[in-house]
């Protein structure tokens, strides 16, 4: 019955959906407790008699209408401009949100130099080295996990199970505080790199294994029949194809690792997170430093996203018809 109605009067149904949508958004905004204080400033006439209740309702409706108009206007743009416009609007809202904290920009300007020369450099150093080591571990781990040899499989599966199972924070503490107990005194940065590499190596082992297993058996047979040895087959035939499957989740891991490197701050490494906390402490400007650090992490992540897209393009080139 309803289906027939919807199909018979598409235009009317469309309008009803729009109106209901606006009402629902307005109600949501109202119940989220949107503030109506500014309504009085814009519409002085309302200020005298309207109750605060009324002001909130009006605010909610106005915002809902603005969203609807915005949606409609965005709909008229071509796709690339739509994406750009949405990014610009959301970014503006984000800035507005930060602006509402009443930040001291002079304080940020004063500290950001050191945050970058010391913090970003250290974070990048730790991340890049850890990523490189983790990739090697993952490759070895994945091949070991696919091994028919029980000893090798046992080693690899114990490793992935342990390091995926312990919280990264715990691993950092255990390596930094525990290794000296057995006679290896280890610096804070090497401890951090070791923990990150081992932890992410374990996650990436599974990604690499799944990627290698996703390549059809015929590829190995084709290579074997041509006389290729197993290591040739792996590095010339299987891995280059597996890369296409491996790269997107690996890119994810790299971005996660970049941010997880902030955990290394607990052992006193002067990376972004540590500096953000300590620089803000002295003058009670915590939020300034934390927001600046967040933005830096975001920028670095965007950099990684771009690199990932480039690499994906490279390994996807043979699939274009």
């Amino acid at each position: 019955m309803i289906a027939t109605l919807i199909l018979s009067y598409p235009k009317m149904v469309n309008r009803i959906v729009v109106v209901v949508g606006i009402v629902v958004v307005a109600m949501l905004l109202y119940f989220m407790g949107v503030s109506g204080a500014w309504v009085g400033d814009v519409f002085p006439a309302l200020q005298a008699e309207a109750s605060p209740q009324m002001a909130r309702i009006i605010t909610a409706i106005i915002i809902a209408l603005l969203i609807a108009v915005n949606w409609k206007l965005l709909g008229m743009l071509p796709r690339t401009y739509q994406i750009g416009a949405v990014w610009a609007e959301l970014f503006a809202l984000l800035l507005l949100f930060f602006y509402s904290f009443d930040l001291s920009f002079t304080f940020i300007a004063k500290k950001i130099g050191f945050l970058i020369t010391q913090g970003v450099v250290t974070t990048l150093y730790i991340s890049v080295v850890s990523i490189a080591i983790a990739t090697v571990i993952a490759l070895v781990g994945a091949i070991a996990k696919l091994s028919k040899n029980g000893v090798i499989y046992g080693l690899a599966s114990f490793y992935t199970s342990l390091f995926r199972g312990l919280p990264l924070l715990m691993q950092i503490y255990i390596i930094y505080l525990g290794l000296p107990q057995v006679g290896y005194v280890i610096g804070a940065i090497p401890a951090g790199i070791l923990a990150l590499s081992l932890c992410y190596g374990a996650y990436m082992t599974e990604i690499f294994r799944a990627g290698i297993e996703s390549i059809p058996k015929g590829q190995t047979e084709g290579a074997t029949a041509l006389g290729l040895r197993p290591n040739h087959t792996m590095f010339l035939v299987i891995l280059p194809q597996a890369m296409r499957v491996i790269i997107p989740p690996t890119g994810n891991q790299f971005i996660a690792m970049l941010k997880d490197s902030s955990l290394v701050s607990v052992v006193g490494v002067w990376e972004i997170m540590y500096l953000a906390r300590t620089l803000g402490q002295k003058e009670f400007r915590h939020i300034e430093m934390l927001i600046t650090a967040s933005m830096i992490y975001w920028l670095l992540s965007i950099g990684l996203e771009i690199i990932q897209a480039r690499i994906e393009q490279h390994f996807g080139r043979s699939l274009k018809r």
Partner: protein
Amino acid sequence: MSKAAHLATGIEMEGVHKWFGSFHALDDINLAIRPRERVVICGPSGSGKSTLIRCINRLETHEQGRIVVDGIELTHDERRIDKIRREVGMVFQHFNLFPHLTILENLILAPVWIRKMPKKHAVEVAMHFLERVRISEQASKYPVQLSGGQQQRVAIARALCMRPKVMLFDEPTSALDPEMVKEVLDTMVSLADDGMTMLCVTHEMGFARQVADRVIFMDRGRVLEEAKPADFFDNPKNERSRLFLSQILH
């Protein structure tokens, strides 16, 4: 090991057995294939045809008996296996081209890495064989850009680049659209005319009649009949082969 005895033999199988779990895939296979001989193997699915030829280049391991290829006996010795694989080319049902490499790169991979051929020379050899399968203008394309028939011809050229003495074909036309079967069979016929030792698992009976010196019929892991194509098709002796032929030749 008497050398003279092996010279006369391309491939020799003696009492070969193979099991997959409890399934008896090859049951006492005895075969001798002379150099330059063209043999077609047919039989119902699951009869062990593919397993038989896959044992020859050790894609499957035989569990009993003796396999000698070009005078080298197949054992667990890796060096022998490598040697035999260099002498034996194989073409698969699903081509198994490497999709991340161009056609030319597919062809020169093994010659460069295994035969240690200089790249320039390998490219010359590759282009020679691409011309032979009449597809040299596609050299810089990727496999997905080619039709099934073209891909299979590339696969044949790829195997030939290693200059094998024996070629194994595992149902090379089964995965092709009907209109592409002929171009692949033509390539195989011209290969046969050049005197290549060939072992083909195929149901293309026209091809078998045209080029085969011998047809081998298998069922349940056993060789049930061996005959010249004319005898096999016109006067099959075995009950099972008669039934099989009546089912595939309408």
